[in-house]
């Protein structure tokens, strides 16, 4: 378990990794619970945000494993309500971003969250190939990945008649620049 004071040895706990990579310090949390009270989706999470922080504080590998396998980290909308209200300024949304990425790296993504990850992947692919989000392509690609063929089909005629759906992607001129960006960004964090 890491202490709140400065120390030089490498902290290999999940809280230590979070702190190293994001400067978010879980030990600062004193469990007031404002984050969980304000979170619009705590009721849908397996662990509310303040409990995730408590689990991190223990440094218990069993609990750390539960965090990375949790549904919580994927349900979090990054609405920023928790950080807005946190008296200790623990940046939970930034921490959640790191936990999601770590959960993918360790192949621990919660089965209920697979659709969310598929959607994000389809979204990023669209940007990678055209530079912009191609909404129709995104939905089709996501349907292929998630096997949710019929969901949202009913919205399509309405979108088309209102001129809200384009069928041809716009490719930006600097698309090479975009693919370079996708190649250059590091896939692994430092630790």
């Amino acid at each position, binding site marked *: 378990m890491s202490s709140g004071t400065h120390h030089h040895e490498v902290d290999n706990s999940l809280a230590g990794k979070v702190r190293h990579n994001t400067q978010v310090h879980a030990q600062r949390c004193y469990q007031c619970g404002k984050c969980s009270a304000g979170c619009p*989706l705590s009721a849908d999470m397996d662990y509310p945000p303040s409990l995730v922080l408590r689990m991190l504080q223990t440094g218990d590998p069993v609990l750390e494993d539960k965090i990375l396998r949790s549904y919580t980290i994927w349900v979090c909308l990054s609405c920023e309500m928790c950080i807005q209200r946190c008296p200790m300024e623990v940046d939970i949304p930034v921490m959640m971003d790191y936990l999601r990425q770590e959960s993918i790296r360790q192949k621990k993504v919660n089965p209920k969250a697979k659709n*969310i990850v598929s959607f994000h992947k389809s*979204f990023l692919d669209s940007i990678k190939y055209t530079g912009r989000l191609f909404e129709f392509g995104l939905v089709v690609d996501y349907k292929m990945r998630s096997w949710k063929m019929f969901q949202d089909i*009913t919205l399509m005629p*309405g979108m088309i008649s209102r001129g809200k759906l384009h069928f041809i992607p716009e490719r930006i001129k600097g698309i090479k620049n975009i693919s370079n960006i996708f190649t250059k960004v590091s896939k692994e964090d430092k630790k």
Partner: protein
Amino acid sequence: MKIGLYPGCSLNGSARDYNESVFALAKAFDIEFEQVPDWNCCGATAAHNMNKELSLALPARILAAAEKHGLADVVVPCAACYSRLAVTQHELLHDPVLRNRVSEIIGMEFKGTTNIMNVIQFVDKFIVDKLEPKIKKKFNYNVACYYGCLMVRPAKILKYDRPEDPQSMDEAMRKIGATALDWGYKVECCGAGLSVSKTDMVSKLSGKIIEDATYRGAEAIIVACPMCHSNLDMRRGDINKFWNNKFTIPVIYLTQAIGLAIGLTAKEVGLKRHFVAVNLPKKEVESA
């Protein structure tokens, strides 16, 4: 007058109505937009959920292009894009190591000099003062101004409006004759990026917003974000099914409401493209 504009992907597609109203309003006030040249997607939720460097590099490329093109003010009508651009600029200005790394990734210099404006700030700075003589038909309705998350939070970075009970949109609506109501869901989340992958959660969250606005007697919900709009408007069928209700309150962009007040037609401001019909009752207007 020329001002920079970053439309973002949704304004080119599903938020075409919003785009039309922003352009129609600008035209009525002799403002010409200059788009950030060859702009790319900001990366939105997907990028920051999946890859930190990518989530900074995509907005940084947009900002660097704006700088290179000499655009001092850049209006960002989508609240999600606005948040990504503002947070990226903040992070890169406060971390020189990260700034160099991101500059290297995008192959462009990033200085962080752009004045990034959301649509409410745009209205405040360029339109509100010139509004009064142009008003043809007061927008005298009870409205619930809905800000959502990303225009006000985190306040420490955005330094924009009060994070719990913002007033800027309420102020602008009062200028065109509306009564802005106090209500409980001004800054609650609509469900945002889970719209496609977890529709039930969006129905739950957006339904609460619509229910409270309706219960308070609002005749319209006023928004300034295409994601909020698509969740509250396009998803209304799902929401009504989820809540077993028949909410009919329309969802109108701030720019559409102002457009109507200065005499633009429903078609000109894109109202015909909504899923929830906008049938505002005709009201007696006292002569000014």
